[in-house]
């Protein structure tokens, strides 16, 4: 015991010889902080400033809240916000459900699972834009697989352009977004499932608990912390999901797939209304920030409920 104490105080002394703990800590995080400050924080402040100007290719003048007033006038903006939340909730919900099913399947003790675990990687590791090219061709009404096979099977009479209609374009983008997001969710859930102690399952099994019961009462509660933190990360990414919609429809047809990020990009980069676009970008940050804070409150409660510190 005294040995340990002596060692610890020695260690403290040894540490004091060098930099103080504070100074050393700041020396370690400052490079990352500066990097982030230049590439993210500064542009963010600029975005806020620009949102109060009428900046375009010509120049910029202070216009106060005009951009925000313009944005909030009418119902269009609220429609887009509503659509964005619908997009996020539906897509994240599907990613979690499909991801959970996928993880459960990949965790099943059947021959070939090592191979299946490998084969779910591709949608995650390839560039999103390239995955989109594959889906674009699948959705093609004249020559694509989905429309073509449906015609041959007699499900539809003529070619169906999936991306040409508001509804079908929206759900097509959801299907692709879920496709991109599911492998990562699956692998994280799979990892969490493998971290659950086998003793729990065996004890329940000895007591005669069936598979479904064990899944519901052991697996789900045990991996709940991973599920809720994955849900938040996934929600933020999905909210800002840009490339899929942009490559598929650029927000069309007739605004049917315009989410907040598409709206902001289109206004700023497409139409060169930097000021108005910035106001929309600020709106995204505010709404996402509020959503995350609320979610973290819920997360805290869930963690307490399941006894995670």
């Amino acid at each position, binding site marked *: 015991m005294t040995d340990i104490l002596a060692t610890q105080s020695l260690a403290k002394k040894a540490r004091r010889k060098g930099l103080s703990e504070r100074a050393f800590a700041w020396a370690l995080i400052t490079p990352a902080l500066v990097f982030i400050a230049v590439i993210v924080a500064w542009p963010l402040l600029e975005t806020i400033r620009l949102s109060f100007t009428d900046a375009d290719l010509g120049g910029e003048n202070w216009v106060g809240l005009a951009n925000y007033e313009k944005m909030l006038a009418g119902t269009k903006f609220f429609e887009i916000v509503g659509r964005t939340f619908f997009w996020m909730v539906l897509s994240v919900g599907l990613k979690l459900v499909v991801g959970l099913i996928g993880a459960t399947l990949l965790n099943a003790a059947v021959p070939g699972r090592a191979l299946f675990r490998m084969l779910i*990687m591709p949608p995650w590791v390839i560039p999103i834009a390239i995955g989109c090219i594959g889906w674009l061709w699948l959705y093609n009404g004249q020559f694509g697989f989905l429309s073509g096979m449906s015609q041959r099977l007699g499900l539809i009479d003529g070619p169906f352009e999936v991306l040409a209609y508001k509804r079908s374009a929206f759900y097509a983008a959801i299907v692709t977004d879920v496709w991109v997001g599911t492998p990562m969710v699956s692998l994280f859930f799979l990892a969490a499932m493998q971290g659950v102690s086998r003793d729990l399952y065996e004890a329940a099994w000895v007591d005669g608990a069936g598979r479904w019961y064990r899944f519901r009462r052991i697996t789900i509660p045990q991996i709940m912390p991973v599920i809720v933190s994955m849900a938040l990360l996934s929600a933020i990414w999905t909210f800002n999901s840009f490339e899929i919609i942009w490559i598929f429809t650029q927000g069309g047809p007739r605004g049917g797939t315009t989410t907040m990020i598409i709206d902001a990009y289109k206004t700023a980069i497409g139409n060169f209304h930097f000021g108005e676009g910035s106001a929309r970008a600020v709106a995204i940050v505010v709404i996402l920030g509020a959503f995350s804070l609320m979610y973290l409150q819920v997360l805290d409660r869930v963690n307490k409920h399941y006894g995670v510190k």
Partner: protein
Amino acid sequence: MLIDRYTLWQKIGIYVSIALFMTYILLPFAEMFRTSLSPMSRLFSTPYQLWGDNFSFKAYSDMWVKVPLLGRYIWNSIYIASMVTLITMIFVIPAAYAYARLEFPFKTASLGIFLSINMFTGAVLLIPLYRVMHTLGLLNTYWAMIVPGAAFLIPTGIWLLRGYLEKIPRELEEAAFVDGAGRLYTLRRVVLPLAMPGLIVVATSVYIGAYAQQYLFAITFNQVAELQPLPAGLNQFIGYQSVEWNQMMAAALTGVTPVMIVFLFLQKYLVAGLTAGAVKE
């Protein structure tokens, strides 16, 4: 073990479900492959034919002629993602160590700031980011794609790696201090070797992020054809008159295959590493 035994019907159910799941995951790749084998005339013929007898690998040789820089694009993608990973890790490792081990003022607050970066994507900040790139003189260089890519991946990297570093027993560092080792020496020679599995997981996920999301920065900050990554370079198969779909698919598949193969085999370590990170002590 007995607990793992399935009835015949359960087995059938599992395999059918896996087959459905895999179909969803792999269908676009199958369609891309089929398209890459089809001559253009067949692609644009109706009714739809799933399989034809005039399939050939011609597109796989034609594509290099149609887009001479294709090899360069494939390489650029890998190079950019590698540089992003390297730079991200250089910034992530010290910061993650500080958050895992040291006490300092504003620790929680500054970590919160890092994590909130996740809420912004490049698409939101493009205009001012363009100006920053312009000011730094990075437009139309590799750095224009590497620097923003790294900035947006640093926060998640810190957060992930911190979890791994927290699990390394403190006693080992104390022992090194007792032996008179300095802080940096301890970090380099004691902590990092022990954290290797965690470092591999974090670097792998950073690489995936960097490789998957290089489209937007490339089309916005870079106009030099020789520097474009694959997703942006594929645009060259889109001509004024027609799109060479079969060659484009062939090029896309050829381009991602090397990286995909590496990750297929890394998957095992990734899951093992994630498991280690997920277990709280």
